């Protein structure tokens, strides 16, 4: 009840309290000292002058921690109690100086905290019984005076208790908030990671089929090629043994070999292209920030994602040729493109068209993906960026694609907008700040 229990008050504010007391106390102590020296109380002025010398080192020590802080606190209190007891003893001008003593409990609780505040205040009361008061102070005055100090002590204690409690509450709240934020960030990172894995899984399935196809160009051409070569070898042998050279047959074999070689070449070229696209899509230094060519990113992503849907969707590309670079992570930006593309493809029930357009608007670039699918119903348009919100069948979507995309675009200081009319298709617009470095863009708005 008295607040004697040691509070869990944050100690980092302790030093601040000491410094505040020093800053307030020093000018008063100086003016007391000067006033008393010039108004006929030289002893008082000298004591005050000596006592205030404790304040500057206390101020300095308050920046340190542990025992040094305790020392600083004690020095401040010693200064205060010395000055006040001197006032009590010498009376100051017309005895009114002693009223200053009443401010000691407040200072004590403020500077030393709940527990030692009581000790200093009680020490003051004890000292007023040990040190004789100013001569015209009667015994009645003295007991009134001591009661008053006790009263001020109690008031100061309760005020300080409130202060400590609310500070502790604030601190607990702040640390809870910090913990919650940390947890949220971790979860967000995990969500982003799992979404990325899901996206990569989807990509791998599509790419594997494409690789199977191009591999077939090569492996399918090899057996007939071997056969033609064997035929050719047999013919050559026959020619050596004196049979007639069958020019027509050889020409036919050579033509066939040429065609098969062409197939192998094309297969190898397409396989190489898939690997290049994959490398462009996601690099090992994925989270590194660097200047990005958005058109290139769109091209790579399109060529990886579209083969699965090539008979379903006609892609119309309209890329701005002079697109400035955007600073960010290629892998993350491509992940956004992929999410939006896959959504557009999967939303399309029949055959459709998809417009992919980039625009250069000075310090901003715009990326527009516009499909002619069924559109997004008005009532769910506000929810599409929510995590785990999905309209796809169970197991088909995580409900994280758009929410992760939103997070990525925000991280790149950009915006992602959606416009959709049911039956009229959906248009996603991504706006990203241009610039090679984060600070380079002029007049960019800070997204809080």
């Amino acid at each position, binding site marked *: 009840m008295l607040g004697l229990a040691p509070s869990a008050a944050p100690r980092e504010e302790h030093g601040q309290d000491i410094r505040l007391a020093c800053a307030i106390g020093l000018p008063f102590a100086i003016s007391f000292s000067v006033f008393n020296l010039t108004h006929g109380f030289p002893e008082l002025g000298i004591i005050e002058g000596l006592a205030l010398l404790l304040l500057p080192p206390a101020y300095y020590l308050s920046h340190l921690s542990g025992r040094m802080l305790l020392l600083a606190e004690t020095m401040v209190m010693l200064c205060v109690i010395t000055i006040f007891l001197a006032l009590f003893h010498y009376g100051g001008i017309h005895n009114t100086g002693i009223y200053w003593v009443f401010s000691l409990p407040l200072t004590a609780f403020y500077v030393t905290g709940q527990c030692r505040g009581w000790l200093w205040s009680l020490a003051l009361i004890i000292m007023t019984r040990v040190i004789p008061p100013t001569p015209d102070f009667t015994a009645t005055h003295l007991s009134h005076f001591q009661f008053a100090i006790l009263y001020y002590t109690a008031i100061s204690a309760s005020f300080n208790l409130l202060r400590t409690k609310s500070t502790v509450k604030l601190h607990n709240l702040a640390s809870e908030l910090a913990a919650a934020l940390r947890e949220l960030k971790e979860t967000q990172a995990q969500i982003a990671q799992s979404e990325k894995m899901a996206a990569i899984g989807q990509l791998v399935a599509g790419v594997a*089929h*494409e690789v*199977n*196809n191009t*591999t*077939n*160009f*090569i*492996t*399918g*051409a*090899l*057996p*007939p*090629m071997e*056969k*033609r070569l064997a035929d050719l070898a047999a013919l050559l042998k026959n020619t050596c043994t004196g049979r007639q050279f069958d020019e027509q047959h050889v020409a036919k074999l050579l033509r*066939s070999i040429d*065609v*098969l070689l062409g*197939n192998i070449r*094309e*297969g190898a070229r397409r396989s190489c292209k898939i690997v290049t696209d994959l490398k462009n899509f996601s690099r090992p230094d994925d989270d590194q920030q660097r200047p990005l060519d958005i058109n290139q990113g769109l091209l790579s992503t399109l060529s990886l994602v579209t083969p699965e849907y*090539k*008979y379903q969707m006609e892609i119309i590309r309209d890329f701005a040729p002079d697109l400035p670079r955007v600073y960010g992570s290629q892998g993350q930006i491509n992940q956004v493109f992929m999410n939006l593309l896959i959504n557009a493809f999967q939303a399309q029930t029949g055959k459709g068209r998809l417009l992919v357009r980039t625009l250069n608007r000075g310090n901003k670039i715009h990326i527009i993906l516009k499909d002619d699918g069924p559109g997004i119903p008005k009532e769910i348009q506000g929810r599409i960026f929510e995590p785990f919100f999905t309209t796809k069948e169970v197991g088909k979507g995580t409900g994280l694609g758009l929410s992760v995309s939103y997070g990525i675009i925000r991280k790149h200081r950009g915006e992602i907008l959606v416009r959709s009319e049911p039956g009229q298709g959906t248009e996603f617009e991504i706006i990203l700040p241009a610039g090679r470095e984060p600070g380079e863009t002029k007049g960019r708005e800070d997204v809080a």
Partner: protein
Amino acid sequence: MTPQKAKVLYVDDEEINLINFRETMCDEFDIFTAATGEEALNLLAREGEMSLVASDQRMPGMSGVELLTRVKENWPDTTRMIISAYTEINELMEAINQAEVFRYFVKPWEESELRLAIRNAVATYDLGQEIRIIVEHGRKQMAERTRIFGGSNENE
């Protein structure tokens, strides 16, 4: 007289696959190729029944399953086969349940396996034809007998 080569139609929208298939199999079979389902149906209508129609699954316009379902309706004796790079479960199910394919081949194909599968498919078709001939022959004989004995029965 050399035995006539079996007619095989292969449908794929990638020309390279068509060439590879033709070059691989032309020594043993009479290969026809088409790039789309529509083209394949036209060719079938022109050239008549084939022993085997093998098709890619994903193509512009008609899908492989759609094409083979049409083939099944019009030329039920023809053996049907899918050769696809995709192994989506619903595509597999459609191929089996709708088009009733003889084999589902995955690209890249293994030449010897594919050749064996085509031989089997052609043999199945031939067997079907033989059975048909035998059955028809049997029916004719039955009809003959019915005519003879039926006539005598009437005479009794």
